[in-house]
């Protein structure tokens, strides 16, 4: 390329333009000239004197060094910035995600549809007591009564209320997301993951809509469908209706358990066990 530029015959080069340029090249201290203005200072189609040639070579060498240094700096800075952005944008690491997906038989219910005993839990995904019960008693209930085939079903009744005075409606956000997961028959996986990843404090801002999407992705849901469902606020009205329904039912705290419609006073597993056994042993449903 350089050769081409040097050797190309240019009739215009004989004009007043070229000697002026040459003069400039010789007179100006080389270091003062910016990178780009070095180009085109030497006429093509003419032989340079050894001195001019030496100046030209030096200028080119300097420009190449500048190119390497500036280019290298830009690359190093860019790599550092990219590394920082990647580190900052890392998606949340969710805890205790299931190894394999579970498909819901019915949304928000586990156990036979015609079970003799129905255990209802009113819960809020932000409620620490609900998490505690989920962590300690949920699997016991499933093992002792549902998987054992004793004719018990468990129904989750959402009662989103802990975010009532918060700027971010995290009880609602999580519930609406769980409903969207339910559309894909993955309510229980999502429900479990919400409790397993409950932040240490309520209304902390952890459960943003984005994070519910990340959880859906981590649970390998159809993210596209899920995101559309969440973005369209598909279950906003339903979540609000759930809260109203719970209030109308006289529920004033979470978790609250009902066994065949009878409200229990606490959330203790032994109390629940007692109530379930009594209901199972009673003649009528």
């Amino acid at each position, binding site marked *: 390329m350089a050769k081409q530029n040097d050797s190309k*015959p240019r009739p215009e*080069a004989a004009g007043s333009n*070229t000697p002026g340029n040459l003069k400039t090249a010789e007179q100006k201290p080389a270091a003062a000239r910016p990178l780009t203005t070095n*180009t085109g200072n030497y006429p093509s189609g003419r032989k340079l004197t050894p001195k001019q040639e030496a100046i030209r070579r030096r200028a080119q060498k300097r420009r190449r060094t500048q190119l390497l240094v500036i280019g290298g700096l830009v690359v190093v800075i860019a790599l550092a910035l990219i590394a920082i*952005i990647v580190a900052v944008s890392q998606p949340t690491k969710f805890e205790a995600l299931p190894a394999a997906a579970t498909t819901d038989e019915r949304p928000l219910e586990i156990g036979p549809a015609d079970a003799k005993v129905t255990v209802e839990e009113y819960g809020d995904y932000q409620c620490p007591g609900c998490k505690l019960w989920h962590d300690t008693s949920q699997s016991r209930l499933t093992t002792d009564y549902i998987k054992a085939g004793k004719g018990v079903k468990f129904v989750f009744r959402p009662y989103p209320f802990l975010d009532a005075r918060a700027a971010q409606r995290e009880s609602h956000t999580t519930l609406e997301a769980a409903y969207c997961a339910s559309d894909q028959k993955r309510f229980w996986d999502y429900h479990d993951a919400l409790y397993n990843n409950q932040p240490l404090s309520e209304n902390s801002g952890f459960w943003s809509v984005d994070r519910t999407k990340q959880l859906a992705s981590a649970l390998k849901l159809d993210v596209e469908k899920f995101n559309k469902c969440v973005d369209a606020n598909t279950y906003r009205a339903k979540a609000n209706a759930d809260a109203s329904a719970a209030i109308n039912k006289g529920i004033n705290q979470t978790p609250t358990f009902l066994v065949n419609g009878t409200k229990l006073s606490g959330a203790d597993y032994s109390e629940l066990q007692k109530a379930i056994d009594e209901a199972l042993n009673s003649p009528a449903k």
Partner: protein
Amino acid sequence: MAQNSRAKASQTAQVATAQASSFSRSLSLDWLFIGLTVVGVGISLYLTWAHFTDTSIICTADRSCDTVNRSAYAYFPPKWGIPVSILGVIAYLGLAGLAFYRRKIVQTSAEATRFTRGQLDMTLFVATLGGVVFSGYLTAMELWVINAICWWCVASALIISSLFIISVVRVWALD
């Protein structure tokens, strides 16, 4: 005298040959550059179209292209900015325009435009360097944040890298 003129003639012929070969090399490099930008425009237009019409992109079985094209990082700044596919269309069209302009002024070979050509090569270098850096950012997000690789994006990254290499060669060779 006769010998002198013969020597001159042979020198002119040599210069002409060297000139012709480097000139054609330069032209083919020009065409390669323009061709790559055209492919880049094509890819970016396709991705833009898919983005706005919500169409699934022709992709590997895992549909990783849709994952990438519908992620937060399909916008710059992420989530709310301009779709990066549109930025791609603009960037490749801009580079194609500059490359066409460069071709035009190289062909006119006027001394006054030589200066412009040097600046133009510098501009192309800076522009493609910016493109490579941006493409590097997008690829890093694909690899380490979105955890999905979109082959259309990889193709675009390879194109901008090739354009950058051509630009480096040109700036390196500036006299």
